[in-house]
């Protein structure tokens, strides 16, 4: 099996993919320019596609990457295609393609199918950190895709124009950012909080659960936050505290990633945290939030839910790609990035990767406009599957 990264595509001439270019970058001192690009030669760059960033987007991105790398055949039925036991949701909507998973999405952008299980036309990998890191990394050319759960404008303090000229914003799903508490807090009867109360907690005005109205639970509040620079933190400040640079003196602990927050909440009594939908569980329980009289409940069936788009903490999940001069057509993608992102922009991707991780799928209209963006590089029409 061995490696199937740079070695594979590196054969043809000066192409060499991301990595030999990196070597050259070493020499010509403008490394970011040539980074992970197709140099316009005949072949397509098939080196490793790497994504990095948001722990919120990570479940989507990483599941996608795992599916991609598996390159499952259409006879699989569990991950791709259909067999006697099951059919993968969304596969039929794609027109029941008779190709392997990654082959199918890659060939739309001109890649040669490998027709081999576990061997996609190009491999992908996803690093786990948080949005700030992802945005940094993609703008510096360290990675191909920067995952972010907050807008890059807020993450890096960019203007809207700068953002539009430097990166392409690919939204692949939505998160209704929940506020969670540990199970002992739920047991103490805290099933909903007002926006004010949450703000009070994070701004150090409320430090004990018994300071919440109607709660008789003498327990210091353990206010868990996300790392500064994480999308979750940025969105929370933005949507809950009133500004991306709002102060949060009430935070007791900050963790780099959502996963760690979930663990800390389940491990410590009296905890409260804000996170992403994908990480709630029996020990990490979302509470209802009352915003100016409207109670958004964590239950999908309620009247107003945190899954609604008008839930104030609702946010887009982004996969940013860098606009590079030497991409063919000067676009924001090379073919690998476009092919990979395109996988998420259809019923299959939305069901398996977004809803499958407890996130909120994009409405069709949004999907269409996203597809518009990536279609620049496509060798066939993407709009009609």
């Amino acid at each position, binding site marked *: 099996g*061995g*490696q199937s990264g740079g070695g594979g595509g590196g054969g043809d001439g000066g192409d060499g993919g991301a990595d*030999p270019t990196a070597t*050259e970058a070493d020499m010509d001192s403008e490394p970011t320019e040539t980074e992970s690009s197709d140099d316009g030669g005949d072949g397509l760059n098939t080196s490793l596609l790497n994504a990095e960033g948001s722990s919120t987007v990570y479940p989507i991105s990483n599941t996608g990457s795992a599916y991609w790398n598996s390159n499952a055949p259409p006879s699989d039925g569990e991950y791709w295609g259909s067999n006697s036991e099951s059919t993968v949701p969304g596969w039929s909507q794609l027109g029941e393609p008779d190709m392997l998973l990654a082959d199918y999405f890659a060939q739309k952008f001109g890649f040669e199918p490998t027709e081999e299980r576990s061997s996609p036309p190009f491999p992908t990998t996803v690093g786990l950190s948080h949005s700030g890191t992802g945005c940094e990394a993609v703008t510096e050319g360290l990675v191909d895709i920067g995952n972010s759960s907050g807008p890059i404008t807020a993450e890096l303090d960019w203007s809207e124009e700068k953002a539009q000229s430097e990166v392409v914003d690919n939204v692949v799903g939505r998160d209704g950012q929940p506020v969670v508490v540990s199970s002992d807090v739920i047991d103490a009867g805290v099933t909903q909080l007002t926006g004010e109360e949450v703000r009070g907690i994070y701004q150090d005005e409320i430090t004990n659960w018994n300071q919440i109205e109607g709660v008789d639970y003498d327990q210091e509040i353990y206010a868990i936050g996300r790392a500064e620079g994480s999308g979750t933190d940025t969105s929370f400040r933005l949507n809950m505290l009133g500004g991306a640079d709002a102060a949060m003196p009430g935070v007791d602990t900050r963790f*780099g990633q959502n996963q760690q927050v979930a663990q800390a909440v389940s491990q410590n009594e009296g905890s409260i945290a804000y996170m992403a939908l994908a990480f709630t569980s029996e020990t990490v329980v979302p509470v209802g939030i009352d915003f100016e009289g409207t109670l958004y409940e964590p239950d999908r069936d309620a009247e107003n839910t945190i899954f609604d788009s008008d839930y104030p903490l609702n946010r887009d999940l982004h996969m940013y790609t860098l606009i590079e001069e030497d991409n063919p057509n000067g676009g924001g993608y090379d073919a690998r990035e476009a092919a990979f992102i395109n996988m998420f922009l259809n019923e299959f991707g939305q069901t398996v990767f977004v809803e499958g991780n407890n996130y909120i799928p994009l409405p069709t209209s949004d999907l269409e406009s996203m597809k518009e963006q990536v279609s620049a590089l496509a060798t066939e029409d993407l709009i009609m599957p």
Partner: protein
Amino acid sequence: MAGATGSRLVDGDTTATDAVAAATVGLSAILFVLAVAAMFERVSLTGTLAGVPTVTLLGGLLIALGVAVGVFGVGSRLGYVETDPDSSAGLIASFGAAVPWFVIGGGVASETLGLGVTGGVAGAAVAGGVAFVATAVPREDVGSTVPLGALLAFVGLVFLSGTIGPGWLWNLGWEQQASITAEFLVPAATLFCALYGGWAAAKAYGRFGARGRHMGAYVLVYLNALSIIAFLFILIAFVVVQGLPGLLTGVQIGAGVGPQLFGSFELPVYVPFVMNGVALLNDFQGVLPAIVGTVWLVVGAVLFAVPLGVGAAIFLTEYAERGRFTQAVEVATNGLWSTPSIVFGLFGFAFLIPRFGNRKSLLAGMLTLGFMLLPLVLITSREAMLSVPDEYRDASAALGVSKWQTVRSVVLPAALPGVVTGVILGVGRIAGETAPILLTMAGGTFVPGAQTVDVVGGFEFTGSPPFVANPELLQATSALPYQLYALITAGVGLGSNVSDPTGFRWATALVLLAVVLSFYAIGIGARYYFRRQLRHD
């Protein structure tokens, strides 16, 4: 002058008093064990032991120990027990006794009597002062037993009377809330009392005087050594026990089950955890890419650091005149050796990354670790070369052999064992380093087996300088310590990748430990081997 004249050349047989003293030491040992067990919640404070509530039992035993120690001292003073005490227990013992009484005095005055901080300080001073004087002034047999015996009895009484029961709690009243709970205080106090009791009892067993102190000190020193070894053992055993299930999931043994090696040969065992990466279609996930990444990291660092370090060591030992320059280099290398690994990481981040394609890469990781390894290689090689007897050099020079020839044919071979051992131990250290590679190399969290780095296969020729390129070297990959870090930060929610995340993490820790410790074992073994060879020849 003290009455230390009565010591005899030959001690008599074990007497009944010895037996009493020994039993007292034994009692403190029991208390020590109980305290440790309670500390780690192996014994429940709220429950019972041998039918008696735990805290009550601890209190009773403490009183018994305290009384035994005190009675022994008084008995000795009154001449019932034959001992050779000094005239005073000495300053160290006095301070030793004063400290716990100081704490108790302070606590009782400020908390129990509610006298506040001033009262607390006064109470502490009084109690500590009395204990100090009571230890220092009387003859050693009384001084080193009675205040401590009283301490033990006091603590025992506090437990026995229920003043501090299982539910006791002392809120420190700090801005950031913290409390001292009985759960902590009872075992901790018992532990200290047991140590004090054991010390006093051991002194008594040694009949006080110089020999008594010797005994007392030895008990503590032995206990300390034992604890360190026990700690090591428990630590490793713990990781092994936690990690084995994860490591062994899906293990198969039998012809042809394993992956292929060298084309055709198939390993007869299949351990998915170390032979797989993470992939959707895998039955069992593993950390192969991280293992391979670690191996390559080490190889790269060694290839960089060893020639450089050994070369520099040769220059410094064989060529450079010993003086300012060598001294400066020595200071610099020692400084480099103690430089925190995260600083190396920062340096790699600022210096190497911009020079290798502006991205984290295996090569940057290798070099960063190489920088870390370099001073150790230099220091150990230099030591090894310095310890090659000058006689060899003289002998060679006297035969009219030139310097470099001598270095190559005589010094280096003789220094090799030292160099090799040093390198292996250093490798063990860098193989377990996380901080530097965090900043210079760390790649994906769950790396598919297909993305295992293949440095050898990655070489390719290019048309422009430097004509050889190796994309694999310029790509980020994973390594075991980073993998473990990533798994910790990824918390419980590993998602669908891994069915048993906790097991997966512990197994990673186990593999990391095994890899690093095997380097150490090889290093220590090599040193042992070389030493024995030297001794034999």
